[in-house]
């Protein structure tokens, strides 16, 4: 459903993403981890069409993001780290705007909007102007808007920022539910626990390169062999393993 084929992106002389080859099938929840400046945001920007690769191709549902961005965007839902809303629109008006952009028929859009308002508990403030919303309310509204057209691919950039524990639970349940229904989720996060809890596979990116790709179980298994005599991987926390991979002088430091 998502395909990065030999994708490289540089900023001047700085290589942000180097030769990324990654296929994410339908119904998988993929979590991209990595320290600040690792290339996660660049990868996400290429996946949603904000940035073109210097080399290689990014495809969503078979559509090239550079050659046919409109066709690719019909299959995409995107929740950015900084939600963008029209301050002078109400939450409901914003949802209608997005539904119209995706060409949803009126009756179907009406049903979906009502359902997402209920799913994300937006009812209380759906008819207030967005300028009065808190960060959490904005984030919930953007989540609702990204799911309106039931996209094949949902891209999340640090999705839990600003959400209260109840909203986090709603989002987690929803992600599980949607991936079971066939939606592919690509998520960038710093929260290891969330990746561990939700992701089918994780990728750890360091200085533009994928240093690890596999399941959390694979990561633990790899961890047991990272440092000789360190003991059983299962007994070491995911945080320790992550820090070892992303450490500048650890295993992840070699290309």
């Amino acid at each position, binding site marked *: 459903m998502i395909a990065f084929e030999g994708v490289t*992106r540089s*900023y*001047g002389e*700085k290589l942000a993403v180097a030769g990324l080859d990654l296929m994410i099938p339908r119904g998988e929840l993929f979590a991209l981890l990595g320290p600040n400046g690792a290339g996660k945001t660049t990868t996400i*920007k290429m996946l*949603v*069409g*904000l*940035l*073109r690769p210097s080399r290689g191709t990014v495809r969503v549902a078979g559509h090239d993001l550079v050659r046919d*961005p*409109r*066709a690719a*965007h*019909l299959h*995409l839902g*995107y929740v*950015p780290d*900084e939600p*963008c809303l*029209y301050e*002078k*629109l*109400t939450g409901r*008006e914003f949802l209608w*705007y*997005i539904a*119209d*952009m*995706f*060409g*949803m*028929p009126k009756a*179907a*859009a009406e*049903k*979906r909007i009502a*359902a997402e308002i209920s*799913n994300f508990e937006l009812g209380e403030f759906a008819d207030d*102007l967005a300028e009065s919303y808190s960060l959490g309310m904005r984030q919930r509204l953007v989540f609702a808007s990204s799911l309106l*057209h*039931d*996209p094949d691919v949902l891209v999340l950039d640090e999705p839990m920022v600003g959400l209260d524990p109840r909203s986090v639970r709603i989002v987690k*349940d*929803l992600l599980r*539910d*949607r991936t079971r*229904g066939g939606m592919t989720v690509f998520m960038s996060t710093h929260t290891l626990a969330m990746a561990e809890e939700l992701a089918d596979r994780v990728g750890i990116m360091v200085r533009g390169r994928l240093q690890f790709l596999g399941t959390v179980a694979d990561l633990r298994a790899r961890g047991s062999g990272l440092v000789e005599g360190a003991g059983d991987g299962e007994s070491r926390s995911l945080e320790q393993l992550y820090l070892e991979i992303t450490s500048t002088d650890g295993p992840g430091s070699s290309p």
Partner: protein
Amino acid sequence: MMPPPAPDALPRPISSGEESGIFLRLRWLIARSTVREMLRTSRLRVSLVILLSALFWGSLFGLFHEAFTFVDSLHAEVISLLFNAFFSSLMVMLVFSTGILLYSGLYTTPEARLLLTLPVRSETIFAHKFQEAFWFSSWGFILLGSPMLTAYGVVRHAPWPFFVLIIPFMVAFVAIPATLGGIVCMALVAWMPRLRLHALSIAVGAALMAMIGLAWMALASPRADAMSAAWFEQAFSRLSITEQRMLPSWWLSSGLIEAAARAKDGTVARHQTEALRFLAVLVSNALMLQLVGRQVAARLHRLGASQLVSEIPTRRQRRMSWFDELLSRAGTDRGRPLRLLIVKDLRIFRRDISQWSQFVIFFGLLGLYFWNVRVFNYQHAYAAMIGFLNLAVVGLILSTFTTRFVFPMISLEGRRFWILGLLPVNRDQIVWSKFIFSFVGGIVPCCLLVALSDTMLGIEPWLIALHEVCCVVLCAGLSGIAVGIGARMPDLREVSPSKIASGFGGTLSLVISSLFIIAVVLVTAVPVHIRFAAQERAVAVAGWTRADRGVALGLAAAIALGLLATFLPLFLGLRAFRRLEP
């Protein structure tokens, strides 16, 4: 959770017309809530804007009516020259203003990023953002141009179709440079993202220089010739370079002149047909350029947006300047927190290009104007009055800066209260630091400008001294009003200084500032005028006359007004700020 959507609920690509319809609805919804909110919360501001716009329009109409009545007595070609010079200058400005507005609308705003992730055509995004930029860059032209053209029609006894055609002519004309600005902007961003700012700055600089050069070339002449018939003739012959038949400004001015014309027998049909032909040329060119603009958008918009995202902001190490160092170390330990607050504001000002560039542009243009007043010869009394008018203009420009940049300063500290609240700084020092920053920052350029204006006008030294005292009074009063009202009515939730300034407190600050300037200028200018009138009637005798006493009293009243405008708002602001709970 939701069941999967029915097949007819799946997303589908929509037509270009549907996309435009969605943007139209979006604009309508935003306009509706904005107007509703303005009527609910900013009635004073709306009324003031309408009233001042009507006043501005009426004054311009009166001014142009007088000017056209005078010019009408000269050769008929003068009007054509004036129109061509005016519209061609506006055309250049519109290219740049729309280009800059579209740069922001198409690439840098959060909305631009949202639109790039939706299944919408680039050409529709261009059309949507172009309409916004078109409106923002043309309303000034319409506000300035409509009274001018109405006055022209009235003076020339133009037939009624002329008045009907004014707006279509203006709209079709504005669309041409505006679209050109958009095309240039997209090409620059896509092909020269790293050079775009430099290229834009160079182009704006070159255009400004060209316009100033044109004005200088047209008006410069020996002092003795100024305002004479020969001077006019010379100036107009130099302006004839703007009469190029390939320029849209020529199509516009020719069309308008035709629309206002009557044949010798009083019939208008032939001239009206000709006017409609010029309108058709303008409309067809505007539409053709729109098509080109949409094609350019389809090819370059996403490429440009990607190029811009690819840019890494240059990292620059900032060190403490010698001036900041000196300011923070000089003086007593007791005053150090106050000085550090001033140094902090000074650094923010220096690093915020939008603040100091506007400061430089406005005061620079004012300086250029004052430098050029020497072209004309004036009598003493007339020169003194122009000196007072220039003083008022300096005050008005300063008041827009104090309202736009100084008034929001206290509100912006709201977000930093967690820092300031934990520091050994009392709240009074925060307010005083803003006042000193504004007062000292304003006094230097303003006093220099007033001195330049008076020197160029050849004003007597005692009057220069009087103007300088008034200038200091204005700087103190305007700073006191902006800081005092800013502390009395802070908006701690808003992060945008422009939104803070455009709220009720900002509007009140601007209105009080304007009234204060008018009061100070009037109480000093009227006695000076009376004194010159007395001198002309040869009433003056040696020694301290009644007229001199009037001037001294006027000055005392101005100082008293200044003290009141400085300390009353500051007192109210300090009292409110001490009690403020962030």
